[in-house]
Structures are given as structure tokens and as C-alpha cells.
């Protein structure tokens, strides 16, 4: 009896050993292949960061692995902030972000001697949505949104009639992004004027489907999240047009359509999404190839996963940043900035003496 049990145990150990074995041999192969850039690429590329950017990294990884079957692309989902923490620790090669890097995150990178290249990869729009039964609210101005979402509104702005004269006496129920997400950072910066400044008394969730559910089942609901979640739930939600009260960005209110994002009228809730690449990792041929692949394939793949491609000019500038190893953030590591056109931002940098180099 005892012998039998011991044999079963040994069997399990042996099985596990077999299953997990063979790691040593493969590893060696990887290292030797890395030395020759002309040979077939291999190795492991670790990507992490924003859950908004995840579908893009995933699509890139999938297509890249199809072309280079020896390369492993692994993508994690730690959120924009969590991704930057791991990035600054040197734990990952690339991190996705739904807002530009912040000063404290940039400082953490510097402290650990990590240099990065910032690559804008797509546009996303944040949609402000209400319940389809809401007949009164088709558009909102930024100042009305600010009145609703500012920290001072806590416990005070609780009824639609307080938002605009003429709106009915209906309770206002708010749904928004969880405080750890880049979406929260960007929305607060764009609407309230300060990153992370928001009233706390709303239903917050990192899972946008919960927010969709909340808005879809409450008549007085108002919520915000990435436009992809609105597009997939058009029958249950109604998008609100946004007026930034700045005639330079088009007069009146605009809906979150691709056209409005690209022509700059859906402001201030159009936001760029980024990949940040560790410069040291970029020396590895597979990472370099992957980054260039991302920039090259972005126009097609970004659209496939529900985002809006950037103008070609921006991708071209991004490629130059990679080739010339221009490090630092074009946003000066100040976090979310609103209403900037990427073409202008990256162009200025190209003409000037590489604006962000001074930060070194």
C-alpha cells in the first residue's frame, strides 16, 4: 500500500518534470539567435500597461508572432499607472498608456536609469453617455460637465434640473472610471482641469461593462468611458454631443465619431494612446522589429480593434523618434494635456532642438 502510494507520488513528480522540462535547451537557442540580427528573430517581448491599449498590443503581438514564430509576445494588463510602475522598475520592455507619462513616473524612470521613447499609436474618444429614455439631454458643454464632475459637486449636484435650466426634475446618477485608470486621469484633466480631481460620490468601476449596465438601466444616469463600449452597446445607450465652447475647434456640440476626432472638433475628449519603449530593450533586435512593426501596422490594426488611426504624418514622426532614439515625452512629462494636436506637438519637437532632450 505504502509502496503504491509512493509510486503514485513519484509518478506525479516525474510527470511534472516532463511537462516542465526542456526549458534549458530552448533558452540557449534564444540567446545565440539574439546575437545575429539578420537571423530569424526570437526571444520574449514583455508588454504591459493600460487596459485600453491592450487590444492594440494584442493585435500587434498576434500579427508579429505570425511573421516571427520564434518570438513570444506576452501582454499584461496592469493599467496605465501600474504599467508605468513596472516600466520604471525595468521589469517590462514596453508599456501601453492611455495618457502621457507624468512627472513622478518620469522621475522614477530616471532614478532607475531607464530611458524611454514615446510612441503615439492611436486616437481614442471618451464618450459621455446617457440612458436612451433620456429625451432632454442631447448635448452638454464642458462647463456643464465640470459642474457635474468637479469635487465641489459632491452631494450638491444630484438632479438634472441643476445642470441646465430647463432640464427636468430627475435624479442624476453618475457612472465613471475607477480612480486607478488612465481614463479617469484624462477625463478629470479634460473636464475639471486637474488630473484626478473628481467628485467621489459616483459609481466607479474599472470594468466598463458594469458602467454600461449602470447607464443602460437607470433613466437619470450619466456616464463616461471609451467610445468602443458605446459603439458595442448603441442600442442601450445614447451618446451626448460635447461642446467645448471654443469656436476654434468647431462651433457647437459634436458627437464622438471618427470624423470629429480626426478633424479636431470632438474636443476635449479625444485622447491619444501611447506605447512607451525602454531604450535599452530597443537594442534587442526583436523589440526593435516589433516597435517598427507596431508603427507600420497601426493604421490597419488600430481600426480593426475599434480605435482611430493617427494621421500618417504622426506615425512617420514616431518612426523617426525610434530611429533617432529621441527619448523623453513630447508632453514634457506633465501627464494628460488637452486639446493638443499630435502633428503640431511632434513637429515642433522635430524642428526645435529636440524639446525634451533638456530633461536628461
Amino acid at each position: 500500500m505504502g509502496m503504491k502510494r509512493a509510486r503514485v507520488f513519484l509518478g506525479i513528480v516525474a510527470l511534472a518534470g516532463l511537462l516542465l522540462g526542456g526549458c534549458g535547451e530552448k533558452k540557449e537557442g534564444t540567446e545565440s539567435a539574439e546575437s545575429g540580427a539578420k537571423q530569424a528573430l526570437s526571444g520574449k517581448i514583455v508588454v504591459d500597461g493600460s487596459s485600453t491599449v491592450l487590444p492594440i498590443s494584442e493585435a500587434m503581438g498576434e500579427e508579429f508572432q505570425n511573421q516571427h514564430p520564434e518570438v513570444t509576445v506576452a501582454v499584461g494588463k496592469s493599467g496605465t499607472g501600474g504599467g508605468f510602475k513596472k516600466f520604471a522598475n525595468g521589469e517590462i520592455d514596453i508599456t501601453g498608456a492611455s495618457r502621457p507619462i507624468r512627472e513622478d513616473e518620469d522621475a522614477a524612470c530616471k532614478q532607475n536609469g531607464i530611458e524611454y521613447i514615446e510612441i503615439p499609436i492611436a486616437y481614442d474618444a471618451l464618450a459621455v453617455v446617457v440612458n436612451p429614455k433620456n429625451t432632454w439631454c442631447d448635448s452638454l458643454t464642458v462647463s456643464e460637465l465640470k459642474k457635474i464632475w468637479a469635487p465641489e459637486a459632491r452631494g450638491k449636484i444630484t438632479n438634472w434640473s441643476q445642470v441646465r435650466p430647463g432640464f427636468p426634475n430627475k435624479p442624476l446618477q453618475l457612472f465613471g472610471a475607477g480612480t486607478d485608470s488612465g481614463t479617469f486621469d484624462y477625463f478629470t484633466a479634460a473636464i475639471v482641469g486637474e488630473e484626478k480631481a473628481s467628485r467621489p460620490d459616483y459609481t466607479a468601476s474599472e470594468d466598463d461593462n458594469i458602467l454600461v449596465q449602470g447607464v443602460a438601466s437607470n433613466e437619470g444616469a450619466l456616464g463616461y468611458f471609451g467610445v468602443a463600449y458605446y459603439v458595442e452597446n448603441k442600442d442601450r445607450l445614447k451618446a451626448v454631443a460635447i461642446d467645448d465652447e471654443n469656436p476654434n475647434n468647431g462651433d457647437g456640440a459634436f458627437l464622438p465619431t471618427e470624423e470629429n476626432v480626426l478633424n479636431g472638433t470632438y474636443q476635449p475628449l479625444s485622447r491619444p494612446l501611447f506605447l512607451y519603449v525602454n531604450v535599452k530593450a530597443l537594442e534587442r533586435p526583436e523589440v526593435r522589429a516589433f516597435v517598427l512593426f507596431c508603427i507600420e501596422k497601426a493604421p490597419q490594426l488600430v481600426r480593426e480593434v475599434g480605435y482611430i488611426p493617427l494621421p500618417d504624418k504622426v506615425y512617420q514622426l514616431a518612426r523617426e523618434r525610434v530611429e533617432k532614439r529621441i527619448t523623453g515625452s513630447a508632453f514634457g512629462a506633465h501627464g494628460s494635456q488637452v486639446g493638443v494636436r499630435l502633428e503640431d506637438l511632434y513637429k515642433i519637437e522635430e524642428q526645435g532642438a529636440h524639446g525634451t532632450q533638456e530633461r536628461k
Partner: protein
Amino acid sequence: MSHFTEAGLARWHAREHRREAIFQVVGALVVFTAMLMLAVLLTKILLDGFARLGWDFFAQSSSRFADRAGVKVALVGSFYLMILTALIAVPIGVGAAIYLEEFAKRNWWTRLIEINITNLAGVPSIIYGLLGLQVFVRTLSMDRSLIAGACTLALLILPVIITAAREGLRTVPNSLRYGSLALGATQWQTVRYTVLPVAMPSILTGVILALSRAIGETAPLLVIGAYVYLTRLPEGLTSPFTTLPVQIYDWISRPQAAFHENAAAGIIVLLALLLTLNAAAIYLRNRYQKRLAI
């Protein structure tokens, strides 16, 4: 008291019977509600996910296209992780239980350890994730690997295994120990040949239930860095990994309804896995119990 008279006694009986009847109805209602909720959940999951279940679903891994995505890497990851976790946690856990029950003197020191083990069983799993991230992933530089995940999960289920194993050892009658010792066996021989075999069924049950807890965990694995997009099977202890619950968690948060169907199908697979484990626990317990009865 009135029920000392005959009529009083009858009234008392009647009242107690009424109470019993009421309790039965309430009890049945509670069970019914719980079962109904479970049934609704299961039906919803089965309806949503059943169509996605097919060979493809098991042969494909992560993809941006919902219909090309499957659970292969996640399922294999869960499987490896469970074996590794068991290999780490079971010897340590059962060993600790044997030491505490059979060898250690009962003093304030062992009582302190006992209290701490009981408390550890109640610590939220994400705390273990944070611990694992700092200790295994960073300090011991295991990276975001299978072995780091297994170590973290092993820590998580250790208190459960220790507690279950100790309960099992306690059910062994002392007369068996005395008998063995009286025949001249050493304490080790007593434990090895008398106590452990008798306690085995309940220890195994505890171990398997602890492992089924580990296999359903998401939070600590996300913290230590399980990946959500991975198409390569683990090749060794240091390989990156993903697991079924992590994959389900990712699919469920996607905007597209097709991914939600994948999540439902993934949940069915996970449920089947858990049921298999629990069935194994019951089978093993019965087998050992039968052997002992002979």
C-alpha cells in the same frame, strides 16, 4: 410551569411542533432560493457559452478576434500552476500539521503559531499577491513566471492545508497511537504507519479543496503579473503564464459581446475542472475509507 399538567404538556408539544414546522419551511425556502440563484446563473452561463465550446476553443489561444480565441494556453497554465502549487504546498503544509499535532509540545509558542495560521487563512488573497510580487517576483527575481505564481498560490493555500490536515490528524483516536507506541514503535513509526494512513482521507480532502480554491484565484495572479495575451505554452518554471480565471476576467471586460460568450464558455470549462477536482476528492476519500474498514 404550566406544561407539568397534562393539558400544558399537550400545548407545549403542539407549540414545539409548530415551531419545527415553521423552521422546516424557512429552511427549505433558504435552500430553494440559493439553488434557484445557482440555477439561474448556471443556465445563463450555459446558454451564453455552450455554443462556443468546441474543439477549436481548446486548441486556440489568445486572439483579438473572439472566434479565434481559445483557452489552450490558459488551461495548460492553470494545470501546470496547480501541480506546482501542490508540489510546494502539500509537503510543507502536511509536514507542519504533523509537527504541530504529533511532535510539538503544547505551550504559548505553538499556540501563537496556531493563532497566526488561523488568521492567515482569513487574509484576502490579493494581499498574498502583493507579498508574492515583492518577495518572489522582485526580491528573489523569479520574474513574472510560473514558479513565482506557484509559490504565491502555495502560500495562499498553506494555512488551509495545515488546518485541514490538523483536523484530520485530530480525528485519529489516541488508542491507536498508544497501541503502536506500546508495541515499541518510535513516534515517527507511529505517525508514519498508524496515524497518517488513518488521517489520509481527510487530509486529501483538505488538500484538494485548497487546490480548487487556488485554481479559481485571479487577483493575486494579476498582481504578480499573469499575462492576458499569451499564445505560447509554458516551457519551464520561468516561463510567462496565464490561467483560466485571468483569461475569463480579461474577456469579460471587453466591449464586444462575442468576447463575453468566450468568457461564459471559459467559465464552463473552469466549472468542469472544479467539479472534477471535487469529485476526485470524494473518490479518494471513499477509497481510503474503504481500505481502512477492512
